[in-house]
């Protein structure tokens, strides 16, 4: 698999579309065990990202993702802003000066992103956060050939599993036991991120149009 800069840029644009479509739903998820703004935060942030990157062509992936990261950091706010921002910032360091990214490099980016999320948020997998999607996706990416449907399935199942978890970080943690039976909104938005990625690769593992 090789992801070109264009494919990566498409990934981000697809992600924004998904955030806009799911804005209300994400906020509803957040209403149940948080403060009801997650969809609005993500939609605001990714819209701004797309405004910034849309008309530019990036020579290499590092500067693309640095732009994505900085925009998310300055536009999302809440918990999601610094977390997604840090994630993409750390990934961008791994993808610096790459014009195409192979699966291994991609995996390294995700790994760095996860490390960033963990340092920033002091959460671990199982705490019912976005990490519970990023973790399984990373495992999948490092162990199996990247394939559209399987990627989606992995992200989706991981997201769904957060339903059973008791929240230990973020606002949902205030709800304690009451957080069970609700999908974590950040997990859902992360699922959307990887669903969008799946939409940007072909079944053969190459970037498609």
């Amino acid at each position: 698999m090789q992801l070109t800069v264009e494919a990566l840029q498409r990934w981000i644009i697809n992600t924004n579309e998904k955030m806009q479509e799911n804005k209300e739903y994400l906020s509803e998820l957040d209403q149940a065990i948080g403060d009801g703004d997650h969809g609005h935060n993500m939609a605001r942030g990714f819209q701004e990202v797309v405004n910034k990157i849309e008309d530019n062509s990036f020579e290499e992936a590092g500067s693309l993702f640095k732009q994505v990261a900085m925009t998310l950091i300055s536009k999302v706010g809440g918990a999601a802003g610094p977390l997604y921002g840090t994630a993409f910032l750390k990934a961008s360091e791994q993808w610096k000066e790459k014009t195409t990214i192979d699966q291994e490099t991609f995996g390294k980016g995700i790994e760095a992103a996860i490390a960033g999320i963990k340092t920033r948020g002091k959460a671990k997998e199982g705490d019912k956060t976005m990490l519970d999607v990023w973790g399984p996706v990373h495992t999948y990416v490092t162990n199996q050939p990247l394939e559209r449907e399987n990627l989606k399935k992995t992200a989706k199942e991981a997201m769904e599993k957060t339903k059973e978890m008791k929240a230990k970080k973020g606002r949902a943690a205030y709800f304690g036991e009451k957080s069970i039976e609700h999908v974590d909104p950040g997990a859902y938005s992360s699922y959307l991120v990887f669903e969008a990625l799946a939409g940007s690769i072909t079944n053969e593992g190459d970037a498609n149009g």
Partner: protein
Amino acid sequence: MRRPKVDMKKLINHPEHVVDEMLEGIIAAHPEKLKRLSGLNVIVRKEAPIKGKVGLVSGGGSGHEPAHAGFVEEYMLDAAVAGEVFTSPTPDQILEAIKAVDGGKGVLLIVKNYSGDVMNFDMAAEMAQAEGIEVEQVIVRDDIAVDNKEDRRGVAGTIFVHKIAGAAASEGKSLKEVSQIAQKTAENIWSMGVSLSPCIVPASGKPGFTLNDNEIEIGTGIHGEQGIERQWFKQADQLAEEMINNLLNEMEFTPGEEAAVITNGLGSTPLMELYIVHRKVAELLERKQIQLQKSFVGEYMTSLEMAGCSITVLKLDDQLKSYLN
């Protein structure tokens, strides 16, 4: 004339403009003492940066007015950063606030303990330090509704930190000193909230939860969220008694000690009712031989138009007391 469909009855123009227009309104009201950093959601004292004085920055989501821009004034904050409604502000904005108030003696950030606030302020602090500005942070965790002490939210007690750190900074104390005093204050605050009705975030247009006529939420935070426990509605005295008992359980007071209290309205509860609650609070403290040295009754940290109140108790020592007066 066409009968308009109305999503929510709020004195606003567009949900996406509420924070910007509010900040413009604040500046329109107080141009002699406040300025807004151009293009940013940051309100700063006109005199800032003040040479020889530690700068004080706080902030958080909007919707808690007068917190925090309302506390930007002499002897309080030097700047407040406003996020979207109930959403932490972003690091770039916080960074600009820090830069705007640094008078060479460093800057103290007063942060309420929410993942979002903590992370955004952290990032801003790192950025500021990278630019050579000395930055300290104090994290407020006063809401006893959350069991685990580390996870406790910052609510109305934050105002005590603004006041006391503000007074200490005005005296010309060093960043380390101001930060220690702020930290001590934060460690001696306990709060608890109750809500009688939810609020509507402009962006969503819907109440965060629903409550029957005879239900209340105990342990509500300040973000329109549900409380920790749903209970039957009860009279003011009984409610005040339960809240004070919970607070005193956490605090380990010895008779004769001194305290200050904020009886804080969450948004739509009339001042009349806050005073009725405060009456009982004062009576209960007296019964426990705790000396109520100073009271604040009113709206300090709100949750839009939520009905209900919170009670904050600050345990005083001579130092804290001197800065509160």
